[in-house]
């Protein structure tokens, strides 16, 4: 601490010295214990949902194109403006380029070995098959606006955005989301008859995901550059062939009632559900880090997770760890949450409105397999709820589940709903990669200010670090959307630039 000055009159000097003493004492009281030297030996970042929406984009992502604000200030050209529009670039490629790029920049500064992207990298929602109207297409512009071409272009734009990560030592691992695997009848540019009413996953969409992301996934196994980029080799890959991948809806084919418009038989989910191991050396013992990616909207079984395949996969990883004398750590990534985060939704009906289930808990069908045995333990799930079986598996292995879909950042420890395990693993929702925020602050009754959960309108991501000591920590960080709120109504009154990078959650012992 710097010393106080001595050139003031005695009375003023005494006051200054007293003030400084108080400041020093307060500083000492606030000082945390010294951080022990515990270097990071491996880390990964995870985020999802960077696509924007052509019709209902978040107002904080609009720019003052042609605006009249002071140069370099809100409402001026290129700066945030409530009365602005999407930058033509984002309106065309349907990506929140600016905010996702800032996330990528900050992740690069953290130097993680992996970046797992939790789905919805494109707006998609078409059906990338040969369009029925193909024979009548008479212009290039009509051709490139078809679902297949347009989705491939969106994939290419996103791939360009993340390409920088590989050059700075971070390998990008893709997870399929519903905007990749599903067709939305209101968005398809193909003949509407080609897409069932509502949102439905198709094999065409899954194949488009593999066509555009497959090189990243296959390289985890073939290792053309995975180890060179990440610094670690992946072994024990699973789900990369039809022999090891699950069927849509579960390896037992127990999703017996395919959705309307879906294939009559459940497709193989090769390269849509997959896993691999990375082993890191720590001070106490090697740690076997097991990474699993699941498709939560497979063709024929929307809103499901392959719980039985996952259970077998995690059990096998546990056995490998035991054989190697390593400590297993399990990280599972899927797009949709198992249980929807009920944030403070404000509508015209008032604040604190219930949030509609949008994750695996939105599946109204039941799994006929009401029990599941893994690792010698039987999980009884008499309710047949898909999300219950899934979470019971997560809890049994004390895995951490990372997801997106909800455009929000939230960390929650969730107990096993079946009561089989006493573990309360974390569900980490990091779906705030740039997509329009779910907490929309809709005009109407006031949202409490400050918010009940102040991070609901922050762009954010999670960083998980494995330390030399073997500890697994997680830091969730992000930045605000620049919205300035009317303190009496809670509505956005004006916009600024996005704020500084802040810590949103800090978990000292993730698992």
């Amino acid at each position, binding site marked *: *601490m*710097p*010393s*106080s*000055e*001595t*050139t003031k009159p005695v009375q003023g000097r005494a006051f*200054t010295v007293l*003030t*400084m003493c108080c*400041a020093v004492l*307060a*500083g*000492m009281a*606030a*000082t*945390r*214990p*010294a*951080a*022990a*030297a*515990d*270097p*990071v030996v491996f880390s990964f970042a995870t985020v999802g949902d960077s696509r924007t929406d052509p019709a209902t984009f978040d107002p904080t992502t609009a720019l003052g194109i042609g605006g009249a604000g002071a140069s*370099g*200030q*809100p409402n001026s050209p290129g700066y945030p403006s409530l009365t602005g529009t999407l930058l033509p670039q984002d309106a065309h490629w349907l990506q929140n380029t600016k905010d996702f790029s*800032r996330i990528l*920049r*900050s992740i*690069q*500064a*953290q*130097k993680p070995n992996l970046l797992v992207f939790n789905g919805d990298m494109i707006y998609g929602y078409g059906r990338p098959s040969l369009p029925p109207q193909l024979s009548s297409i008479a212009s290039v512009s009509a051709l490139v606006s078809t679902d297949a071409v347009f989705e491939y272009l969106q994939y290419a734009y996103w791939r360009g955005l993340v390409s920088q990560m590989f050059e700075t030592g971070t390998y990008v691992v893709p997870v399929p989301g519903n905007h990749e695997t599903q067709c939305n009848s209101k968005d398809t540019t193909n003949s509407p008859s080609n897409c069932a009413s509502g949102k439905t996953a198709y094999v065409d969409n899954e194949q488009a995901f593999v066509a555009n992301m497959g090189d990243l996934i296959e390289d985890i196994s073939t290792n053309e550059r995975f180890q060179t980029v990440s610094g670690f080799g992946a072994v024990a890959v699973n789900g990369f062939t039809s022999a090891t991948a699950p069927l849509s809806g579960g390896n037992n084919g127990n999703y017996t009632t395919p959705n309307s418009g879906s294939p009559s038989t459940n497709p193989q989910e090769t390269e849509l559900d997959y896993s691999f191991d990375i082993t890191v050396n720590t001070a106490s013992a090697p740690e076997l880090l097991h990474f699993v990616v699941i498709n939560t909207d497979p063709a024929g079984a929307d809103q499901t997770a392959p719980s039985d395949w996952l259970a077998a996969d995690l059990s096998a990883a546990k056995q490998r760890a035991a054989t190697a004398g390593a400590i297993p750590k399990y990280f599972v990534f899927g797009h949709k949450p198992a249980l929807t985060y009920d944030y403070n939704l404000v509508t015209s009906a008032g604040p604190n409105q219930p949030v509609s289930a949008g994750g695996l808990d939105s599946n109204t069908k039941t799994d006929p397999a009401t029990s599941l045995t893994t690792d010698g333990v039987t999980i009884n799930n008499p309710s047949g709820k898909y999300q219950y079986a899934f979470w019971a598996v997560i809890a049994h292995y004390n895995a951490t589940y990372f997801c997106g879909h909800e455009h929000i950042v939230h960390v929650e420890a969730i107990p096993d709903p079946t009561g089989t395990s006493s573990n309360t693993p974390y569900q980490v929702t990091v779906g705030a990669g740039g997509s329009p925020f779910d907490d929309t602050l809709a005009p109407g009754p006031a949202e409490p200010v400050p918010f009940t959960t102040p991070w609901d309108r922050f762009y954010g991501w999670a*960083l998980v*670090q494995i*330390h030399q000591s073997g500890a697994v*920590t997680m*830091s969730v*960080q992000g*930045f*605000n959307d*620049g919205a300035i709120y009317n303190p009496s109504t809670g509505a956005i009154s004006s916009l*600024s*630039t*996005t*704020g*500084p*990078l*802040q*810590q949103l959650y*800090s978990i*000292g012992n993730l698992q």
Partner: protein
Amino acid sequence: MNNKILALAAFIAAGYLVPTVSNAALVLDTGTPAANATAVALDSNDFYAAEFSLTGGSTVTAIQAYLTNSFFADSPGDTFTLSIYQDNNGKFLGNRSAAAVFSTQGTYTADGWNGASGLSWTASTTGNYWAAIEINPPSDTAVQLGLLTPTTGGTAAALAFAFNDGSGNGYSSANALPFAIQVSATAPVPLPAGLWLLGSGLTAMAAAARRRRPAI
């Protein structure tokens, strides 16, 4: 001239030569954080600065920021950069090519006040300056440290705060958050006081010499 007169002259001369040094005072003190204060992330992408006034001739002797290992990424001994930028009619803000007028390296030792002391950079002109904390690899070894938001008022509030999100646009004060930082500086002794010292010294010398002159 005997030894006593020489010693007195040397003492006076020394007093004249070092009249501009006084003890350091806080010219920027934004307050102290609570243990659970919000942390902003300092890494090689996200930089922070606070604006303060400085009188020409003042010498900055220490810069300290309240840093924590909130992101589990760093160890004691990791280094970062402390810089001072001159705010010349707002040219610092938004100017991606602004050059620091002073830079030094600080060291993270433990959660709390960390920085650099024993500095001796003197401001040539009176005006507003920015104290910035940055991580510039490879010379800096810190990865990601937490800068805490102050929860108690400081003794010398910042004129403004700014941050740089790595976008290439430089620092911006829009939507910035306060963070705990302190700058210590010595104020220059005003010229009249120096002259008074010189005059009184010369008078004392003359008086001493006359007293010791032998009678004729």
